[in-house]
């Protein structure tokens, strides 16, 4: 609550306090009376005797401004209170009850809004006189419809939230639900709008005064002062400018407070959004070997953000390669950096506050060296993406046709007619019936599965070499998921392209990919061919994830292996191995040193763990002295990747022993038999 109101808020609050205090104590201040003429020479500019000068009748402008503040503030605050007093209960009622109550209240409200405010104000003032109270009532009443509408909207938002349903489930009465669940949530937005409303009311009062319809002379009002000063504009502009400026500052202050309070209600802020842009200075890349004959090579890719809570290493030194015709899966829980990884590869990270490092090679060409224009060409034609939620992946206001045709026209230079024909072919190729009809549709007219097929068709439109699919089926039903993943595989085979599939679902990954990367806290913790990784798991995190998922083949009520804790706070990742606080096998070393990637016995299977599962390394404590066996080829390769020499030696030992022990044992059984 106390966060980030900002200095402007306090400054504004200070100004309002000052004006309020001055208005309240005006009679006690050493000021001339506001209506006393010729306290100084007429039309005198600001000076020591009269800080704000005098007006045409020689009255002290400062005094008149201070007394004028009374009218402005009383009307401003009073009108809002009156509006809220009548508008808020009606709005809450309409928003909470809905149906008939809502229809009646909003119907009346609509008529009230159609009634000319000016006629009402003039008639009341003419009928009952332009007293302070009448002006206040007029402006208050005129504000009621707006308040009803506003409070109703806010109430509706919160009434739909499940905590309101939950309170009713508990058996709470409607009245209790309203007072304890709805009203506290609605009150903050109402408070913020109250300040903005006060600004509006002060301006409205000023307008009435300007027309001579507010509190009558001799009582000074700000609007009146400005109106009176108009004839003197040429000779004594201060008579107009000073009240104008004071009024401006006051209105600004009320607006500012309202705006800052409203920012507080913005629930979207998690404090992990990148803050303010800093020109993307690149993180230095560690030396690496550029592979030949691979389609995609990612080398030491890093993406760091500056956030309100500190630096976040969303992607931290990820390397992998990908061949044509293969599917690489990236798995991890929320916050593992898997989505950010593919956005980084594609160069689509948010610009603000982001620092990127490392290299991305497509057929040996370093994409990180390209400028925006060159990168756009690559993105349009060689690398394509499909995202999680097909609901948000298509532009809601453009037809399917416009969207599918666009890349064809932009990148392939097709004419409209050719593009339309090609778009229809594309839709047909992803299994959409009646493509010509669908092209004229809008996204909301299609089902989720159809929309995802459309986004796939768009991604494939310019014949990409790599399709990046970020949780393409998470928002879809399981039968549709099967259809979509089947489609992606078929397209991969037909087009001989590569696929990068990001998913949180291990069974999806196991079924549909060739190679797998497991990510945790922005790092690769295990990587390898799918069968090796799932059958001879090394990293305890991967193992834990596999066992935490209920399996269909398990009997009912089969106890799940629990992975305690939750994914780490990226702003403050644990030291050493980021997984160590949750790891059942963790020892002292895990919290101190970060493990490099070791080579497992299967080719290309790597893992980042000091005491991997199923290797015997986990029982090291019973045999403190490891044998000094010389490393295998894989172990040497792993050693290369280790940052420090000592670590490398140790790593080689671990790997060697692992390789020896594993030749005969079934990994999972072996791990279990050790009583883990």
């Amino acid at each position, binding site marked *: 609550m106390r966060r980030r109101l900002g200095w402007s808020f306090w400054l504004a609050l200070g100004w309002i306090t000052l004006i309020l205090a001055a208005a309240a104590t005006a009679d006690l201040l050493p000021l001339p009376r506001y209506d006393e003429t010729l306290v100084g020479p007429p039309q005198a500019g600001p000076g020591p005797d009269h800080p704000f000068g005098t007006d045409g009748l020689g009255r002290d402008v400062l005094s008149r401004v201070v007394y004028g503040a009374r009218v402005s503030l009383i009307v401003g605050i009073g009108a809002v209170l009156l509006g809220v007093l009548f508008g808020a209960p009606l709005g809450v009622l309409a928003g909470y009850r809905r149906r008939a109550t809502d229809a009646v209240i909003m119907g009346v409200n609509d008529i009230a809004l159609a009634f000319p405010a000016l006629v009402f104000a003039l008639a009341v003032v003419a009928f009952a006189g332009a007293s302070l109270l009448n002006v206040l009532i007029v402006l208050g009443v005129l504000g009621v419809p707006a308040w009803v509408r506003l409070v109703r909207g806010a109430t509706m938002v919160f009434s739909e939230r499940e905590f309101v349903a939950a309170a009713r489930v508990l*058996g709470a009465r409607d009245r*209790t639900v309203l007072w304890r669940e709805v009203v506290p949530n609605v009150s903050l937005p109402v408070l913020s709008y109250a300040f903005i409303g006060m600004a509006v009311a002060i301006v409205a009062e000023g307008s009435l005064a300007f027309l001579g319809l507010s509190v009558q002379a001799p009582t000074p009002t700000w609007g009146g002062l400005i109106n009176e000063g108009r004839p003197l504009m040429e000779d004594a502009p201060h008579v107009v400018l000073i009240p104008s400026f004071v009024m401006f500052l006051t209105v600004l202050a009320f607006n500012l407070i309202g705006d800052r309070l409203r920012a507080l209600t913005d629930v979207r802020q998690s404090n992990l959004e990148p803050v303010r842009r800093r020109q993307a200075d690149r993180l230095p890349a560690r030396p690496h070997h550029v592979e030949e004959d691979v389609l995609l090579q990612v080398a030491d890719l890093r993406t760091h953000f500056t956030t309100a809570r500190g630096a976040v290493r969303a992607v931290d030194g990820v390397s992998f390669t990908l061949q044509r015709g293969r599917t690489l899966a990236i798995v991890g829980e929320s916050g593992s950096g898997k989505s950010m990884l593919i956005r980084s590869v594609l160069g689509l990270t948010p610009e603000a506050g982001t620092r990127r490092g490392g290299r991305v090679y497509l057929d040996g060409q370093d994409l990180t060296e390209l400028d925006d224009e060159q990168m756009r060409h690559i993105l349009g034609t060689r690398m394509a993406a499909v995202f999680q939620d097909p609901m948000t992946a298509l532009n809601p206001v453009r037809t399917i046709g416009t969207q599918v045709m666009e890349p064809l026209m932009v990148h392939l230079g097709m004419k409209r007619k050719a593009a339309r024909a090609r778009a229809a072919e594309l839709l047909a190729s992803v299994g959409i019936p009646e493509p010509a009809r669908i092209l004229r549709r809008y996204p909301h007219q299609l089902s*989720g599965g159809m929309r995802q097929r459309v986004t796939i068709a768009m991604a494939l439109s310019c014949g990409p070499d790599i399709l990046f699919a970020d949780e393409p089926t998470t928002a879809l039903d*399981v039968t549709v998921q099967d259809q979509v993943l089947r489609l992606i595989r078929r397209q991969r085979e037909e087009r001989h392209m590569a696929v990068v599939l990001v998913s949180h*679902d291990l069974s999806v990954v196991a079924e549909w990919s060739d190679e797998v990367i497991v990510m945790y806290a922005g790092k690769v913790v295990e990587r390898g061919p799918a069968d090796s990784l799932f059958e001879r798991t090394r990293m305890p995190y991967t193992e834990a994830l596999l066992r935490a998922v*209920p399996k269909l083949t398990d009997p*009912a009520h089969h106890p799940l292996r629990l*992975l305690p804790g*939750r994914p780490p706070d990226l702003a403050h990742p644990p030291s050493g191995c980021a997984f160590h606080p949750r790891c059942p096998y963790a020892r002292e070393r895990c919290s101190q040193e970060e493990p490099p990637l070791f080579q497992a016995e299967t080719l290309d299977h790597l893992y980042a763990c000091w005491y991997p599962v199923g290797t015997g390394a986990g029982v090291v404590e019973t045999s403190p002295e490891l044998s000094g066996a010389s490393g295998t080829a894989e172990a040497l390769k792993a050693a290369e990747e280790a940052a420090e020499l000592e670590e490398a030696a140790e790593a080689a030992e671990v790997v060697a022993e692992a390789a020896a022990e594993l030749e005969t044992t079934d990994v999972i059984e072996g791990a279990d038999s050790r009583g883990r």
Partner: protein
Amino acid sequence: MAGSGNAHLRPPGEVVLRVEDLVVEFPAGRGRSVHAVSGVSFDVARGETLGIVGESGCGKSTTARALMQMPPPLRGSVRLDGLELTALRGEALRRTRRRLQMIFQDPISSLNPRRRVRDIVAEGPRVWGAGADRVDEMLTAVGLDPATAATRRPHEFSGGQCQRVSIARALVLDPEIVICDEPVSALDVSVQAQILALLEELKERYRLTLVFIAHDLAVVKNVSDRILVMYLGKVCELASGDALVERPAHPYTRALLASIPRGGLGLPPADQLISGEPPSPVTPPSGCRFRTRCPAATPLCAAEEPVMRRIGTDHWVACHHPQETGEILKPVEAPQVARAPEAAFPQPAEEAEDARVPKSPKVPKVPKVR
């Protein structure tokens, strides 16, 4: 699928919750309506967990809300220990609500952001004028520290912890039935397992009766004693989790299972078991609602709606042409008939026809031949 009928219901004395012919419709404009739930029946015995599984739009969450009478169903009966809830209004309904509690899908949205966590859990006892003595016990039971909960608000907790708070809030009133509506779908894999384990543990400890609704069949199977499969507002199949996974009889159940990656169940690929898109619930198909996507559909399916019938020990299906289960049923009066082991798919209509089994409430358990 898409069947009606109440053959699968157990005698009222054996169950704590009995739902019959539940119908929920919503206005869809222009005088039409969304047929969200159309004649769903099921029951839950005390201490049992009933899983309800189905894809989006099948009416499972609407069913949950209708059980809570939020809003009350258009037609049908919901009886809690013999008490007809749909007949209750106002104060009487409110007083009954505490006996049925609910856990929601979105852990963040289901907690009031402006209240402290302990107050959220203590709200139930407060409403009912009970002391808050169980509140701390409940917080501890769900794995939260009461001292922390007294000062913190929901946004300071993770999704998993918020779901624990929801569970504590529901259980503190000592309800007879807890309805869990997708309680783990919004959670990470590791946290999901923790919550499932917690529910199992609490169920033992407080002898809870659960209705567990989810779209993930593996999750449902893990916690349920019996599973109800729903499609487009109708019931397809009811069986124990093991029977359902090992011997799925309804074409939709089979499609659902086959779609699960790494299901490892020896079913044909899913694209041979289901086609097309779900029809609109505003204009559902005649007869069996699954027939438009079913490879085994015949004219009979369009003409006549299948009703629930028994095809195995506590295994019920609403289909004119169910897949053979391989289980031998011994009807009370009919001679024992041996069945061929897995028949090829799709099942010819005639062959399926004679798989009909006379309805009989008590059928002796017969070992299956396979």
